[in-house]
Every structure is written in structure tokens, then in C-alpha cells.
């Protein structure tokens, strides 16, 4: 009997309209757990190499985990969406919290596999073990809020949970996102474009099945202990949200500002979480089972009307369409956040793409003739807001920016490429590797391109007291944030596998150490109680490592190897201002660290190709033929 999970994946072919149910078996769940790891199990078995990411043969996977929704537990509500990415041409993967995944589990499935392209716009209706493909012609072209309202009305149940793309996904904007309940985003990797390419506007789920839990009393006791260890801080994550960090990062010289030219923004206090709480915060939102309540809901009437239905800006958005663009208006950022949610655009990629264009404009590489009259100087928030709609509709200058910074730069030429900050086509998120150097490895080596959630960042681990949370991983010695020695590489390797494990079980980083109340030991014990498996930290971290290797194989098969594990040139140059002015990622030090990383992972130190020994050790020797092809 399966505990914590259903043991069922729903397979839907939109072209043939065939719907079937598969049961992967306990050994698959135990080795792959869920999330990106389970998704890679399917992608590597089924997706043919060199598939067009926006063609009908790409496979789009929604994957919960063996823990998702088992009990109302903080953080255990995330799910992964994965496919081949139109941004990188390699693995595309992105996680979201909210309400969709627990509902999917209650509907009787752990994962949904979408194949083929529907002949006309459709949505998928999944409910209590059943699924049907329904017409969505009447929803096509509408903003997300209207679609959510229409679907809940059509299905006659306000408790239906809806994951959907917006008009940007329909138009195949390369960084279109997927969202659930209008404010929880699978933001990255352009997965909204993949969904749009399949003519799939939404997936609605509703379920009433409670998950079986192996030892409910034990699991509840662990959750009680976790709850008792959590004390809400009146100026912490819950009360002030993720955006509270903007002025802190700016003071430290590591707030991405004006296309990563500097790390300090003169208006950082104006766009931080404290100011947000004092001005436009209407309420705090949350995800299934979570008492941290870090989500924001903002409302305003002037200078912009902002609807709290779409939540409010997270730190990533505050920086990506704020400091990165030189924009210091919290209201304009919040309006931009709402528009991106209405159209289904990843705010990070949008911001980094616009900041690229703004720098090109300031440097004279782009002129108002290129931009069709738009004034792209840094700080022009009206242009930022206008561009959201132009990108979403692929109109005018927006059509070029809808391709993302990498492709836009190639098309512009004239030296524009050096201002396009991306890794593997994925625009940089809002953390500064020059001030916390494990991020140089994270950005270069994440299988999905520049990603800030590969590992908890360096400042946590500068002092002995901060190491306590990660002692169970065998990490004992603190290291300075600016260190990129072999000892930092070892710390990164271990922490990356820890976070790969969290992604595989759908665990939010803000509910687990070093951010949240779940200790590493709690997580292992909770997994044991829910699943009934006699498991251990060893087995769980090995699952994380399995993910890293499967993702590597996926990318190598698509031609993304060592040459793509690079940083944008700007990060090898000194910051132009702020507390860390002049600090850079030394190219030779980075090259040594990367080689050390490959070696520690059991990969060839030069080419970064996993050894057959490592793949066999992780029981994924079945992928070896994929490397040879």
C-alpha cells in the first residue's frame, strides 16, 4: 500500500485526446520522490533528443511528491513543472507553492504528463480520479483573473484549483510562466510557452481523497514539534515578506541594480518590504498548510489601481522590475507585478531582459528608432509598464524582447551581447554572485540556467553559530561569503544536493532550515512517518544527487555541456559601486572551482560528463546509452 502518495500518474495526449493512468510502482517513488526528479525519470525515458521545445512532441510534466498534501504541513505544498525549455534548449524546470499540488493529490494523482498539441484551445479538468479535455476557445486571449473566475463558475465549485497560462503563454513569449490561483508561479524556464504551444490554457483540479499516512500520530507529533519551534518575528519573513531584504542587500552592496552594473540602489528603502507593509499591504497570503504566511496581497487606487487578487510583489520582482531598472516606485513595481500576473510573464526574466535593453539604449546601441519611440532610460517606470503589455502581445519592440535577453542581443548585434545577463539563455535572477560567491557556481552549474535556488546562500554560513542547521550534512566549518576555495566548492556540492532533495519532495525553502522551522532531521523523520519507509538522510540526499546527474544527462544529450557552464562576462568584472565596489569573480579562481565541482560530483573534471561509475552508483545506469548517442 502507498502511504503519502497515490501511486498514479495521469497521462494526457492532447492530439489524440487519449487519457490513461499509470502506476510507476513504489521503487520509482522511493528513488525519485517527486518534483523534478520524477519528471526527469519520464523525460529521459520518453522525450526524444533535439525535440523542438515549442513543438507538439515536447512533454510537459506537473509533478507533486510523496509528501505533498499528506498532512497540512508548512512548505510541503510545492510542485514542479518540467519540460524541455524554450529559453535554454535544455532542462526546463520551475517550482510553485500555493494550492494546486495538494488538490492534485486529493484528486488521486501524483503527476500529470501532457503530450501532443490540441487542435484548438482546451483546458484539462481533473477531478476525483477522472479527467476530461474541455473546450477553452472562450477563454483564449483573456487575462488570468477572468479565466479563473470563468472556470470556477463553469465548473460550479469555488474550491477548484486552477493552474494556467496567460496571454503571454498563448503568444509563446519565451519566458511566459504558469501560475496557480493567480499568485503562485512556476515562473522560470519558459514553461508557460510550452503549455501555450500545446493549446492548453489551464488545468483545473478538485479532489476529496485524503492521503493515507503510515504513522499519522508520529507525523502529527513531528509537525507539532516543528510548530512549537517557530516563533513569528514581527520584522521577519512572515510579517514583512521576502521584499524586506532589498535595503539590506543594498547596504551590503549586493542588490542587483541597473543591469548588475552596481550593487547599491539609492531608493532601496522605498521599495523594501517594510515600506510595502506601511503603505499598500492589504493582507498576508499563504500556501496550503503554512502558518509562515509570507505572501503579500497589495491594493492601491492611485497612482495605479492595483487588485489584491493577484497577490503582491516578492523580492525577486521588487528587484527585477525595480532596482535592476533603476525604478524606485513601489506602486509602479506592484502594478508591474499585477500586469505580469494577468498576462502570465516571469517577472525575473522580463526584468533582466528589459534591463539589458535599457543599458543598450543608454549606451546608444539601441535608439528610439529601434524601440519605436519608447524612452528606455533607466528609471522610466512608465516604459516598464508599457513593455509588459507589448511583450505579452508580441507587439512592436515587445516582440523582440519576448525572445529573452540572449536572443534579443543576438538579433540586435552591435556589441549588445555583453549586456545580456543570462546563463544558458535563462536571464539572471536577483542575487549578486560577486558578493556571495557560491552563487557563481550556482548560476553557472544549475541545469536550468541561472538559478538562485540551487543552495542556501553564503552569508548564512560565515559564523560558527550559523553552521548548526547544516551539521547533519557534515558541514562544520564556516567560510567567508567572498571565499571560492575548494572548501566552498565542497559546501556548495553538499548544499546543492540538500536543495535538490527539497525540490524533489516539494518542500518550500522558506519552511526548512536555514530559513524556516523544519530541521533536516525533522524532514527525514517526517518522511519516515508519512511514507512508512525505513529511510535516512543518506537515502534522501542520494535522491538529490540522482536529480543532479539525471539533469546533467538531459542537458548533455541536448548539447549543453561544459561550454554552457559559464558566467556572463560582467560578473568577471568589478562592481561599479556600493560597498563591494571592485569585487569580481576571478576567472581563474572560477575555472578551478568549476573543475573541482565536476570532480567532486564524480564527473570528468574537464568536460563535466558524469562517469559511468557515478551513474551506476546512483542506480541510473540506464541513462548511459543516452550519453553515447
Amino acid at each position, binding site marked *: 500500500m502507498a502511504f503519502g502518495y497515490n501511486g498514479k500518474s495521469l497521462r494526457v495526449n492532447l492530439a489524440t485526446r487519449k487519457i490513461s493512468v499509470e502506476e510507476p510502482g513504489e521503487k520509482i517513488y522511493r528513488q525519485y520522490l517527486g518534483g523534478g526528479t520524477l519528471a526527469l525519470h519520464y523525460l529521459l525515458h520518453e522525450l526524444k533528443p533535439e525535440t523542438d521545445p515549442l513543438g507538439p512532441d515536447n512533454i510537459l510534466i506537473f509533478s507533486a511528491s510523496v509528501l505533498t498534501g499528506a498532512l497540512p504541513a508548512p512548505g510541503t505544498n510545492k510542485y514542479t513543472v518540467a519540460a524541455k525549455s524554450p529559453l535554454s534548449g535544455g532542462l526546463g524546470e520551475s517550482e510553485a507553492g500555493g494550492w494546486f499540488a495538494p488538490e492534485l493529490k486529493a484528486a488521486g494523482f501524483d503527476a500529470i504528463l501532457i503530450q501532443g498539441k490540441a487542435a484548438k484551445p482546451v483546458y484539462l479538468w481533473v477531478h476525483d480520479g477522472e479527467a476530461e479535455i474541455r473546450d477553452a476557445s472562450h477563454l483564449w486571449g483573456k487575462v488570468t483573473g477572468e479565466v479563473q473566475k470563468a472556470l470556477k463558475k463553469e465548473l460550479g465549485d469555488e474550491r477548484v484549483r486552477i493552474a494556467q497560462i496567460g496571454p503571454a503563454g498563448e503568444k509563446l513569449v519565451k519566458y511566459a510562466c504558469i501560475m496557480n490561483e493567480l499568485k503562485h508561479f512556476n515562473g522560470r524556464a519558459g514553461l508557460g510557452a510550452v503549455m501555450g504551444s500545446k493549446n492548453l490554457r489551464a488545468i483545473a483540479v478538485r479532489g476529496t481523497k485524503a492521503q493515507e499516512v503510515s504513522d499519522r500520530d508520529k507525523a502529527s507529533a513531528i509537525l507539532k514539534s516543528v510548530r512549537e519551534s517557530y516563533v513569528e*518575528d*514581527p*520584522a*521577519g519573513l512572515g510579517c*514583512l515578506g*521576502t521584499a*524586506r*531584504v532589498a*535595503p*539590506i*542587500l543594498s*547596504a*551590503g552592496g549586493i542588490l542587483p541594480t541597473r543591469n548588475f552594473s552596481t550593487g547599491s540602489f539609492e531608493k532601496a528603502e522605498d521599495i523594501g*518590504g*517594510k515600506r510595502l507593509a506601511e503603505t499598500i499591504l492589504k493582507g498576508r497570503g499563504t500556501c496550503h498548510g503554512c502558518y509562515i504566511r509570507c505572501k503579500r496581497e497589495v491594493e492601491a487606487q492611485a497612482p495605479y489601481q492595483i487588485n489584491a487578487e493577484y497577490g503582491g510583489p516578492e*523580492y525577486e520582482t521588487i528587484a527585477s522590475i525595480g532596482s535592476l531598472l533603476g525604478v524606485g516606485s513601489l506602486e509602479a513595481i506592484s502594478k508591474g507585478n499585477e500586469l505580469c500576473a494577468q498576462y502570465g510573464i516571469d517577472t525575473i526574466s522580463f526584468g533582466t531582459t528589459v534591463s539589458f535593453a535599457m543599458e543598450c539604449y543608454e549606451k546608444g546601441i539601441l535608439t528610439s528608432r529601434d524601440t519605436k519611440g519608447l524612452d528606455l532610460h533607466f528609471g522610466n517606470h512608465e516604459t516598464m509598464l508599457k513593455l509588459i503589455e507589448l511583450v505579452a502581445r508580441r507587439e512592436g519592440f515587445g516582440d523582440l524582447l519576448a525572445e529573452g535577453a540572449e536572443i534579443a542581443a543576438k538579433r540586435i548585434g552591435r556589441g549588445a551581447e555583453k549586456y545580456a545577463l543570462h546563463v544558458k539563455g535563462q536571464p539572471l535572477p536577483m*542575487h549578486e554572485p560577486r558578493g*556571495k560567491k557560491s552563487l557563481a557556481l550556482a548560476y553557472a552549474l544549475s541545469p536550468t540556467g541561472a538559478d*538562485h*535556488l540551487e*543552495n*542556501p*546562500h*553564503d*552569508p*548564512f554560513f*560565515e*559564523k*560558527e*553559530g*550559523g553552521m548548526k542547521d547544516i551539521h547533519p550534512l557534515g558541514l562544520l566549518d564556516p567560510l567567508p561569503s567572498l571565499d571560492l576555495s575548494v572548501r566552498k566548492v565542497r559546501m556548495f556540492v553538499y548544499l546543492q544536493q540538500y536543495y535538490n532533495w527539497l525540490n524533489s519532495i516539494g518542500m518550500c*525553502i*522558506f519552511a526548512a532550515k*536555514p*530559513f524556516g522551522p523544519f530541521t533536516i532531521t525533522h524532514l527525514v523523520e517526517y518522511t519516515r512517518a508519512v511514507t512508512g519507509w525505513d529511510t535516512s538522510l543518506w537515502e534522501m540526499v542520494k535522491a538529490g544527487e540522482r536529480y543532479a546527474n539525471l539533469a546533467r544527462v538531459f542537458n548533455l544529450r541536448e548539447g549543453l555541456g561544459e561550454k554552457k557552464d559559464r558566467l556572463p562576462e560582467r560578473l568577471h568584472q568589478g562592481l561599479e559601486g556600493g*560597498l563591494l565596489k571592485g569585487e569580481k569573480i576571478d576567472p581563474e579562481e572560477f575555472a578551478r572551482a568549476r573543475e573541482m565541482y565536476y570532480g567532486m560530483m564524480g564527473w570528468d573534471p574537464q568536460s563535466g560528463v558524469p562517469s559511468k561509475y557515478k551513474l551506476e552508483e546512483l542506480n541510473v545506469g540506464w541513462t548511459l546509452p543516452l550519453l553515447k548517442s
Partner: protein
Amino acid sequence: MRGAESSNYESQKVMIRIKIKVYAELQAYLPGKQEESVIQIRGGARVRDLMESLKMPEHRVMLILKNEKKANEGDLLSDGDALFFYPVIGGG
């Protein structure tokens, strides 16, 4: 040398006033969980002594500014200094 020791000894008899501002999670360590405060401490105290008096653990502090310049736990304090404390944050 003897003179310096004597001066240091004398300075410990007087109290100095330090203006403090803390960010986000570090508010928990200021009296009344305030964002700003003025703290009195003995002359000759260092930043570390002040943090200890507030029970502010060093591993929760990412950055200290003294009079708008980067400071360390071992720095000496003077009457009227303004200290800013920023908490450890990391990703997300």
C-alpha cells in the same frame, strides 16, 4: 604604553551613548523590539560588547556599518557613534 592603559582605564568609568538602527529580523534584539534605539555602554567597549549586551548572536548579523562605514565586531566604540546592523539573509 602605560599612558594608553591609564587612559583606557579612565574611559571605562564613563558611559558612552551609541545610536543603533537594526533591520528586519534583528529588531528582536533591541529593547521593545524597536527599529532604532540609543544604548549606553561603558567607555572602551567594542562592537562585540554591545552585541553581547543586546544578546544579538554574531551569526545572525551579515553586515555592520559604523558611521556609514563597514565595521567589525572588534572595533572600538566612541560616544555618538551610529551603528547599523543588517541580518543574515540568503536567497529566495
